[in-house]
């Protein structure tokens, strides 16, 4: 399997296509954090941040940073017109209360039922940390996970049952990887798109749970 897969930036670019104009969206750490840069200029997304911001704009320019206006990774950011500040409590009224249209998180494992594991690698040193991922996962109207399709050792990250500590059960709607776009449906995992140059059968081989697909599967839509 030495064929080139999508880069992390290409995964982010594909995920950006899932965001409709006007949506309220939370982006997690890792690949999700690359997505905002790929939102087209004619689309306005109201990015939510657990730090108490709705309408978060791009990273602040050097020399213009305000360290009271930061994202959850301490990065100084900006506001877009129509933004609002609020407390951490209200930030999570939005997450848990089901008010965010779309949330996109990174993943370590996703099961065929849509369970997500993304906060801790078993056996890792240190205490780990949950952060806002559990609140976001249970509350999102639509939860998308972006991640590499397989782990560094080649093992599938899309599995029948997660072996890593769970973030939330039955929460994932769509997985976007460097090989495919896959929807979690009541009937199981539905293969929606494959990376350019890959066949559904090749993707199935690298997936730890059965993929449903029929007929020709389109290539992942990517802007140039």
């Amino acid at each position: 399997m030495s064929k080139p897969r999508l880069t992390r930036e290409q995964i982010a670019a594909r995920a950006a296509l899932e965001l409709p104009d006007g949506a309220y969206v939370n982006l997690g750490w890792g690949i999700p954090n690359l997505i905002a840069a790929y939102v087209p200029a004619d689309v306005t997304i109201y990015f939510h941040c657990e730090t108490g911001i709705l309408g978060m704009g791009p990273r602040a320019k050097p020399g213009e940073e305000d360290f009271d206006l930061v994202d959850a990774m301490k990065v100084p950011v900006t506001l877009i017109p129509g933004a609002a500040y609020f407390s951490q409590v209200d930030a999570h009224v939005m997450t848990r209360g089901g008010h965010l249209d779309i949330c996109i998180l990174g993943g370590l494992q996703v099961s065929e039922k849509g369970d997500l594991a993304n906060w801790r690698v078993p056996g890792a040193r240190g205490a780990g940390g949950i952060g806002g991922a559990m609140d976001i996962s249970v509350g999102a109207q639509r939860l998308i996970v972006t991640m590499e399709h397989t782990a560094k050792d080649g093992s599938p990250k899309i599995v029948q049952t997660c072996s890593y500590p769970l973030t939330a059960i039955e929460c994932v709607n769509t997985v976007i990887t460097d090989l495919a776009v896959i929807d979690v449906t009541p009937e199981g995992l539905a293969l929606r798109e494959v990376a350019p140059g890959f066949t559904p059968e090749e993707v199935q081989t690298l997936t730890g749970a059965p993929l449903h697909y029929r007929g020709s599967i389109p290539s992942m839509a990517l802007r140039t």
Partner: protein
Amino acid sequence: MAHKNKIYQSPDAAVADIPDRATILFGGFGGAGFPNNLIQALARRGVRQLKIISNNCGTGDGEAGILFKNRQVRSVIAAFPGPGAKYFQEQFDAGEIELELVPQGILCERMRAFGAGIPAFYSPVGVGTEVARGKEERTIRGRRYILEEALGGDFAFIRAQQADALGNLVFRKAARNFNPVMATAAKTTIVEVEEIVPVGSLDPERIVTPSIFVDRIVRAQGLRYV
């Protein structure tokens, strides 16, 4: 998908899809912050068998009173229907309307829970009173509590001072009251405002209800106090 336009041209347009038997939350308290234009539009629309959640039940024809006068309401959840709620009181005494009386703070808190994704919570309010009837009681750390369930609606009718076109809201003085929490607790929140201002003109620190909680905006046409 086109960026959703939240601004409606009239109160009637903003309530045009509300069906019979809808559950509707009404903001307002102490005469201030009532969505009177939306209530009047709902009266004109003539839908029936409504379930309404509101601190009170109107004063004469005013506030929600007109809906009772028109016999559009089958069921009420309220903290203080009020002696001035003439039409409600008549129908209540005649056994024609259902009422669940809820302590005012618990009315708020149940809606807040709904908006916050909390299905139920334990409460010290009403323990040992009529309010506890039929509710689970539980002792936690030596004190008695009852279980209260989240309360939400199909629609919320609220009133604010200003909105921008996205639906960010600021309120004025004690007219804030129930309005912000109701915005979080309905599938569709409709706000009537004194003024619609350009996006970006509201101070982000001053916004009380962020736009995510607002679905429809309409300019109030008078009826600030009725």
